[in-house]
């Protein structure tokens, strides 16, 4: 008999080479390799191994092998350096972040030609994003040291960049990622360089400020290359040899940092940023073991180096909270001791209310993290777990590969920087809702508590005094609507993603109806929590109806009859527009099983169901009787 009859070793014990071999087998046999890919995420990979992984990802894409849970993306690159050297490593990194990335590189140093020519073959690709990756190395000119020459150079360069960015935006039907410049070269003037009109640092500053304006004006995404290289240290980030040799400005470490930054941006744009920071307590947010050392015995705050370090961790966690990241605790401790420490210890800056969930008990951390996710109603993949104890880290990693668990050194001094360097809380936009998100999750926890106290669901929901403001998506709520469309994975019927430009275009079309919904209750304002996109259709007996192409809802408000409220109001709006039926669409993914019965629960009849294109459900408006819902209608008509 062949080797196949033997039981294979558990996947987590495989080496990188063995995993690669197994993935290759999967590709040949067209089997889904996602389990192997999950294991690869746990290995710290060298650049060459990432490149190998990149080649594999490209083969997976070419072979058409389906990978469950991995999103396909296509990135276009416009650059004036040898970007063609980067894709393998970038694609490898993307794979470890859950993306099957395809990269198409435009002609080298031809940004202006591509931008000016709408017929350029570059645009025939169906890109999800284009990165405008122009480097100072490729722009730099030797200037005469007089201000006239500097003025002319600067005005030429500014208009070149402007024309390129605007041309790309005009011709490519996708968002741009724009990176700024950084000055790598030593100056012959030294400290006064920035004071001189022709000083190269001054020139880069001027160009960068123009790039910022163009980014803001065009609503593009921004990669702060200058901050990246400066933080790393430009002397080691760049390599003059590589630039002279192959027109590639960075050395290997710099390149890896740069590619990481691109991945972080993509993660954030695609709504895969982390939402929850789960902290251990002993030796993570204070020094010592509170159960052993007592409240007075722990190290926190000024007075010792370690105490300062732990204070830094607390400050970082609190600023993340202010930015909209939800905090929770998973600690093996006695709950009363911990509570009284947080309340009484003068140097602990947390309040007990800063944590949306406290799991302080003797259960294993993996199960506690699972229940935190459940209580907050978020996916387990939106959690970051910080613990000084390698055992706990390992247990969580082994149980939940989707949870991000960074390695921590024994000494606490870098903990705060390590948390921030993860870049996993990255936001491409900062909206008002982000500021209030914490309150909303906290309210959620309160509601959950109230819920368990209340016997009757109906009367509980009524007692919440809910009201929903809704209306057509306009400029006031466009940003948040697009954000919700792009980050929702669970309550998302068709999981299509949109750029702001695309939604704006839809607003202009008569046959498109775009709705937003907000929800308020006596505990607080949940903000904008649902988006519904409809388009006119006549596929059912050539009679006019509305096709619900997209419907997303924030999972924070599930179980509150909001779905029924949406359908009630949608029916009213559709009838006003002479529609006779609603056509609901559902495309199953690995994450949206929560809505697999939504349309049938809402009284829709199955109209069509295919394995590849998903399902269509029909609701006849003539027979429809509005649902009784515990939500007050606050329709807003701004037009």
């Amino acid at each position, binding site marked *: 008999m062949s080797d196949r009859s033997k039981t294979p070793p558990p996947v987590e014990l495989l080496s990188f080479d063995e995993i690669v071999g197994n993935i290759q087998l999967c590709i040949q046999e067209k089997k889904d390799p996602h389990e192997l890919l999950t294991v690869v995420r746990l290995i710290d990979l060298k650049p060459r191994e990432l490149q*190998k992984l990149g080649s594999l990802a490209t083969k997976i894409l070419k072979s058409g092998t389906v990978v469950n849970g991995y999103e396909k993306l296509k990135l276009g690159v416009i650059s004036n350096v040898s970007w063609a050297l980067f894709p393998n490593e970038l694609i490898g990194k993307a794979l470890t972040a859950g993306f099957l990335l395809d990269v198409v590189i435009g002609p080298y140093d031809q940004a202006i030609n591509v931008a000016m020519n709408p017929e350029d073959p570059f645009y025939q690709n169906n890109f999800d994003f284009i990165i405008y990756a122009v480097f100072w190395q490729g722009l730099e000119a030797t200037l005469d040291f007089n201000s006239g020459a500097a003025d002319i150079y600067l005005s030429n360069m500014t208009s070149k960049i402007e024309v390129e960015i605007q041309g790309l935006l005009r011709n490519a039907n996708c968002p741009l990622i724009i990176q700024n410049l950084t000055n790598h070269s030593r100056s012959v003037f030294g400290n006064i360089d920035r004071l001189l009109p022709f000083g190269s640092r001054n020139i880069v500053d001027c160009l960068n400020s123009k790039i910022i304006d163009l980014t803001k004006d065009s609503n593009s995404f921004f990669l702060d290359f200058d901050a990246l290289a400066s933080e790393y240290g430009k002397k080691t980030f760049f390599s003059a040899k590589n630039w002279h040799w192959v027109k590639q400005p960075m050395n290997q470490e710099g390149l890896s940092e740069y590619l990481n930054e691109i991945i972080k941006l993509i993660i954030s744009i695609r709504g895969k940023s982390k939402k929850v920071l789960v902290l251990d307590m002993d030796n993570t947010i204070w020094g010592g073991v509170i159960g052993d050392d007592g409240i007075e015995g722990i190290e926190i705050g000024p007075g010792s180096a370690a105490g300062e370090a732990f204070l830094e961790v607390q400050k970082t966690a609190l600023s993340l909270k202010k930015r909209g990241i939800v905090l929770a605790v998973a600690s093996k401790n006695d709950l009363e001791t911990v509570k009284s420490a947080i309340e009484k210890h003068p140097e602990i800056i947390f309040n007990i209310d800063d944590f949306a969930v406290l799991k302080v008990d003797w259960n294993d951390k993996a199960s506690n993290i699972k229940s935190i996710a459940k209580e907050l109603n978020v996916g387990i993949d939106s959690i970051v777990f910080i613990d000084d104890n390698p055992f706990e880290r390992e247990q969580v990693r082994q149980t939940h590969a989707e949870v991000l668990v960074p390695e921590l050194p024994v000494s606490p001094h870098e903990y705060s920087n390590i948390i921030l360097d993860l870049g996993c809380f990255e936001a491409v936009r900062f909206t008002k809702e982000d500021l209030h998100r914490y309150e909303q999750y906290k309210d959620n926890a309160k509601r959950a508590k109230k819920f368990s106290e209340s016997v009757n669901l109906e009367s509980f929901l009524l007692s919440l005094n809910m009201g929903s403001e809704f209306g057509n998506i306009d400029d006031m709520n466009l940003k948040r609507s697009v954000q919700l469309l792009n980050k929702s994975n669970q309550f998302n019927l068709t999981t299509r993603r949109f750029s702001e430009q695309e939604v704006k275009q839809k607003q202009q079309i008569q046959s498109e109806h775009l709705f937003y919904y907000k929800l308020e209750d006596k505990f607080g304002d949940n903000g904008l929590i649902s988006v519904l996109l409809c388009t006119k259709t006549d596929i059912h007996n050539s009679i006019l109806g509305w096709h619900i192409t997209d419907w997303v809802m924030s999972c924070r408000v599930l179980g509150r009859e909001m779905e029924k409220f949406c359908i009630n109001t949608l029916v009213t709006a559709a009838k006003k527009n002479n529609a006779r039926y609603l056509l609901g669409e559902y495309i199953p993914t690995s994450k949206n099983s929560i809505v697999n019965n939504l349309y049938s629960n809402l009284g829709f009849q199955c109209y069509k169901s295919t394995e590849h294109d998903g399902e269509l459900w029909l609701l006849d408006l003539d027979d429809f009787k509005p649902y009784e819902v515990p939500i007050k209608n606050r329709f807003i008509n701004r037009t």
Partner: protein
Amino acid sequence: MNEKDIWGQVVIVFCDIVDVEKNIVFETTDSESIEEWDSLAHVRLIVALEDEFDIDFLPEEIYGLSNLGALYKVILTKIS
């Protein structure tokens, strides 16, 4: 690391970067015999070898060095 280990390591790096199987890689392997070993792969290979062995090639040393055995010999002199 003895010479045999170093050769083994060169082959591993080569296979990762050029994306070929170990069993077709020998000291006589050159860019003519392996289609995937193009100029871009060559640059990535040099950078990866520098990274792996913590050495620094001069561009003039590796210019036209598209035979794996010859590359390996340059690495040996750099390490010793």
